[in-house]
């Protein structure tokens, strides 16, 4: 520690604040901010990949696959997102344990669902009972990332399938006239031209993803909301060297400012990107959105 924080009750105000803000629990709080950023950094590319996959499914020539792709995109966006989050985390956990149960304990005869219990054999437990607290936390966080990726992947799929349809028909016809086969047309024309039409939607999705990150709290992750509540709550001298009243208001004010900065910053970057990518194309992303 850079500051001498051995006896906080004798420090003056500035030093007290510095010591308070750099104590162990606050460091965990700063780590949880990092968790949000990691979630954003991982969930965004995975969702884009999944979205592309779903859009390709929805555009497939084989009708059951096409229907499946359209169905997934449709139901995911018709239902409150929080319901999805809460559903997915348990469902994924149980799904994984079920798969492991079947593969690891083939001679287990009792049913898995017994009344209000979900019982799998000892070996199939995820993570296993013996593993450390950290492993449990990491497992929870990975489940959360998968949940976010699936939900936002479906949103992205919706955007991509719209963008694929927005590619001007003339360009496809030109490609056909040049004798390109459907596969070549997709990869060389549609796929490449689609991005600019998808950009406004993707920008919007990124903003939404940022604003969805506090929902990590609902998935049982010790995220910034959790720590803001923990640290802000009134503390008596019995339990801490830094007693204070109920400061949760200020902690959440900090979170509001944090998110406002993050969205404002993203907006600036995305605006610049849109302007750069649509340069000379005769339309901007905004125009496209209004036309749609």
């Amino acid at each position, binding site marked *: 520690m850079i500051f001498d924080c051995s006896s906080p009750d004798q420090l003056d105000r500035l030093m007290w604040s510095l010591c308070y803000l750099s104590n162990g629990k606050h460091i965990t709080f700063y780590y949880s901010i990092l968790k949000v950023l990691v979630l954003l950094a991982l969930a965004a590319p995975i969702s884009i990949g999944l979205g592309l996959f779903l859009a390709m499914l929805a555009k497939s020539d084989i009708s059951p696959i096409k229907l499946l792709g359209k169905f997934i995109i449709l139901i995911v*966006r018709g239902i409150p997102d929080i319901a999805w989050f809460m559903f997915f985390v*348990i469902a994924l956990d149980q799904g994984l344990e079920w798969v492991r149960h079947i593969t690891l304990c083939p001679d287990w005869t009792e049913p898995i669902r017994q009344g209000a219990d979900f019982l799998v054999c000892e070996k199939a437990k995820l993570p296993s009972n013996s593993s450390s607290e950290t492993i449990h936390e990491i497992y929870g966080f990975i489940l959360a990332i998968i949940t976010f990726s699936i939900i936002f992947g479906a949103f992205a799929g919706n955007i991509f399938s719209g963008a694929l349809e927005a590619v001007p028909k003339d360009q496809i016809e030109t490609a056909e006239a040049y004798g390109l086969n459907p596969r070549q047309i997709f990869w060389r024309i549609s796929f490449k031209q689609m991005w600019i039409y998808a950009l406004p939607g993707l920008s919007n999705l990124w903003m939404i993803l940022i604003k969805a990150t506090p929902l990590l709290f609902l998935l049982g992750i010790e995220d910034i909301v959790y720590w803001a509540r923990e640290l802000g709550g009134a503390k008596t001298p019995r339990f801490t060297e830094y007693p204070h009243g109920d400061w949760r208001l200020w902690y959440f004010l900090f*979170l509001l400012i944090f998110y406002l900065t993050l969205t404002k910053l993203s907006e600036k970057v995305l605006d610049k990107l849109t302007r750069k990518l649509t340069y000379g194309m005769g339309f901007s992303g905004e125009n496209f959105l209004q036309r749609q």
Partner: protein
Amino acid sequence: MILTCLEIIQDYGLRSIGLGERVLPKTDITICHQATLIGSGMLWNIYFGVLALILGFFFAILLSLGRRSDHQIVSYLCDTFILIFRGTPLFIQFFFAYFLFLSLKKAFPVFDPFTSAWLGALIILFFNTSAYSANIFYGALVAIPRGEIDAADSFGMSNWQKFRSIEFRQMLRLAWPAYINEAIFMFHATTLVFFSAFPTRQQKGDALYYANYFADKTFNPFIPYPIVAIYFIILTIFVVLLARVFNSSLSRHLPKSVSRPLRLRFNFLR
């Protein structure tokens, strides 16, 4: 079977507002229990959604006009309001508002009802939908063809006449599809209320609150959450049908080829 289910509906149909059986089912939970209680919880979602949308509609119009205003301070204030409520997660807004009302309550006991969900959360939802709708309305206001305003001016209309008979109607027509999206997602956003700081008194919660209760009790998410989904899809269809009626009345002056049927573009969540 049907009889017992009717009994369950009698016992729990209005449980979410505190009427009927006090104790929630703990054992022998049937699908009927789940559907009834979750349906009962929908009352809260509808309450929050409808009130916030009705109040928000008018406030949003004021905000969008304020944002367009030539008066710099007014337009700056409206802009900031919209930015704050659109730029931060609704979830954090709930937490912040709850703790704000809690501190206010200590100083002024008048604020006591604000710390309960029925008022405190409603205010946040109202502000939130106002900011999102104001943004939509502002976009529509700016998109009104210049010629129509000029025509109104040359008829010698006063500002109020011009707003009432030209701008307001055109704005509503242009903004309608986007506004209906907003309305649908407002209803979805109401599910956040009881998962944020606002306390649930005597287990009177919304649809998702009960779904979560059942998922915890039965350890089986595959029944309660799909029930929530079905209720919300029904609600969404209802909103869309209502919106269609309004849409055709808003664009009744247009030739058939110009007035397109309402096509929805979803903007997911906030």
